[in-house]
Structures are given as structure tokens and as C-alpha cells.
């Protein structure tokens, strides 16, 4: 007999875009990232975050209940706004084995990746469809390791 309040053990992936609150300082950014690192590992959440001063684009993967718990917190977080879920799917395997972050600096290399998946060379996740958003994150992570802040789970 199942507990009526239990959840199915279902693995999902959720990708969202959001706009950074202009008041957020680089100190706040560092805090966001450290906090994300800690909370996500504890909840069995892996994924990839890329951001600049204006936008966040993130994929999170993990148990359906935990991912949705995190989503509710993210929606209430005043440090960003206009959160848009781009895609949320049930998955049979994670694409991200760990928790990765990437600062979306406008380098030649990054601009080439943004341009590959959008109409502009600027990073604007609101203009991306789900396939492009997924591929863009994958390409950013595939760059040489020194450019990606990556910590093993």
C-alpha cells in the first residue's frame, strides 16, 4: 500500500530562462551559485547553469518532487524575475552527471555558440526554443574545462 503523500520515483529534466534583477551584485551572484551547489547536491539535483548580468538559463535534473520544489522556490526568488519554463520532460537518464556553471561572457567562442542557436550573437535565452536551449547548454559545457566552473558531485 502506498502512502497517499508519497511521490513516484520519476526522473525529470526542467529548463528555464529568467531575467536577473538589476540590483543583484556580483557578490549576490556568488552567493546564488554557492547556495545552488549545496542545495542541489543534497536533493539529488544535477544540471547546468549559464548566466550573465541580464539572463539566466538553467537545466535542472532530478526527482520530480524535488525539481518542482526547487521551481517553486525559484519562482519566489526576488533576485530574478519573469521565469519561463522552456521545457520539462520525463527522462530515462540524466544528461548532466554533475552540477556545472558557466558565466556567459561575450567571448568570440561563446558568441559563435549563441549565434549557432539563435538569430543574434548575443546571449538571450528568451529567443531560444527548447531544442536550441538544450544544445546551447551542451555546447557551452563541451568547451575546454578551464572555461567552465565545474565541480564533481
Amino acid at each position, binding site marked *: 500500500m502506498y502512502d497517499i503523500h508519497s511521490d513516484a520515483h520519476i526522473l525529470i529534466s526542467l529548463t528555464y530562462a529568467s531575467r536577473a534583477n538589476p540590483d543583484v551584485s556580483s557578490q549576490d551572484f556568488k552567493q546564488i551559485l554557492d547556495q545552488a551547489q549545496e542545495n542541489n547536491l543534497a536533493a539529488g539535483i544535477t544540471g547546468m547553469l549559464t548566466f550573465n548580468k541580464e539572463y539566466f538559463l538553467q537545466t535542472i535534473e532530478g526527482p520530480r518532487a524535488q525539481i518542482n520544489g526547487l521551481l517553486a522556490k525559484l519562482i519566489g526568488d526576488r533576485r530574478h524575475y519573469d521565469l519561463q519554463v522552456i521545457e520539462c520532460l520525463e527522462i530515462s537518464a540524466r544528461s548532466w552527471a554533475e552540477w556545472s556553471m558557466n558565466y556567459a561572457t561575450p567571448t568570440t567562442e561563446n558568441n559563435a555558440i549563441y549565434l549557432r542557436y539563435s538569430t543574434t550573437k548575443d546571449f*538571450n535565452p528568451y529567443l531560444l526554443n527548447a531544442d536550441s536551449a538544450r544544445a546551447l547548454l551542451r555546447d557551452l559545457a563541451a568547451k575546454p574545462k578551464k572555461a567552465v566552473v565545474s565541480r564533481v558531485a
Partner: protein
Amino acid sequence: MSLAEAAAEKNAKFLHGEHILTRMTYISRYNSHNDNDELNKILDQARKNNSSRGITGVLVFNHDYFLQSIEGRRPLINELLRKLVKDPRHFSLQIIEAREIDQRRWTHWDMNYLTPTSRHKDKALQFSGASQFNPYLMSKRQIMMLIETLTKMQEQEAKKNVVEKRGLFGLRKAS
């Protein structure tokens, strides 16, 4: 940079992915402290707000749970999601699936209201491993199949009612 380019860049900052048609399906628990007529209010509100925003969809309700699928422009679906997450009349909202679609499944500008009555109850359990109906234990595919099955049942019942009306009133057309 030309004037047109500058305008395009300025425009892009406010673009939201309006051109992308999205379907989002979620489940939530109904707050049992709600007033008796709260559900009717929720339905009225949804009908009014969604039709003006081009949002179509279906709502399944069974006194404990909501199952809802909503379709529309990506930014508007997400605007609605942000409201839903904060709405105290339900809780533990879980997105089951959010994806881009080529066409809508529900063409009505309002919500279909499907109550799994005793006739529908068997259908609910058909897609569930638990002895009690609980969408939190169901996979995306099971939830989508249940919504689809209940929708078809409702469509058939509506058709049957029309036929019965015709039988009674001769050539009366379906309203």
C-alpha cells in the same frame, strides 16, 4: 549599427518567445479548507482569464487533486504558472510536462470540467498502480492517457446528449 538594427536589438530585449506554442501539464492538491463554491469560482476565473489570453486546456478535478493541461504562447503559459504556484487554493503543484507543440489538443477557449464520478473512477484506476487514485504516483504517460480518456468520454456523452435531444425534439440542432 543601422537604425533598423538598433531597433531590432532593443526589441529583442522585450521578446519573450511569443511565437512558441507550449503545452504544460501539472498536478496539484486541492486545499480542503476552500469554501464549497470555490471550485466554481476557480473555473469561472479560468474561463474568463484564459480566453482573453488565448489559453486553451482541460481541467480534471476529483475533490483531492487537480490535473490540468494548458496550451498557449510560452510567456503567457508561464505567467499563468507563476500565478498558480502562489495560489493558496491548491498546493504541491508539480509540472508533469512542458513542451513545444505544433498544434493544440484543446480548441476551446475555456476549461473542460471533468469529474471522475463512479463511472469515471474505473478509468482513473486503469492508469494507476495504487489502490487509490493518486496522480503523484503516476507517470507523465499515465496522466496524459487518463486526461485523454476522460476527455473522449465527455465528448461521447455530449454527443449522446445531443442525439437524445434530437430524439425528443425532432430536428432541433445541437447548441
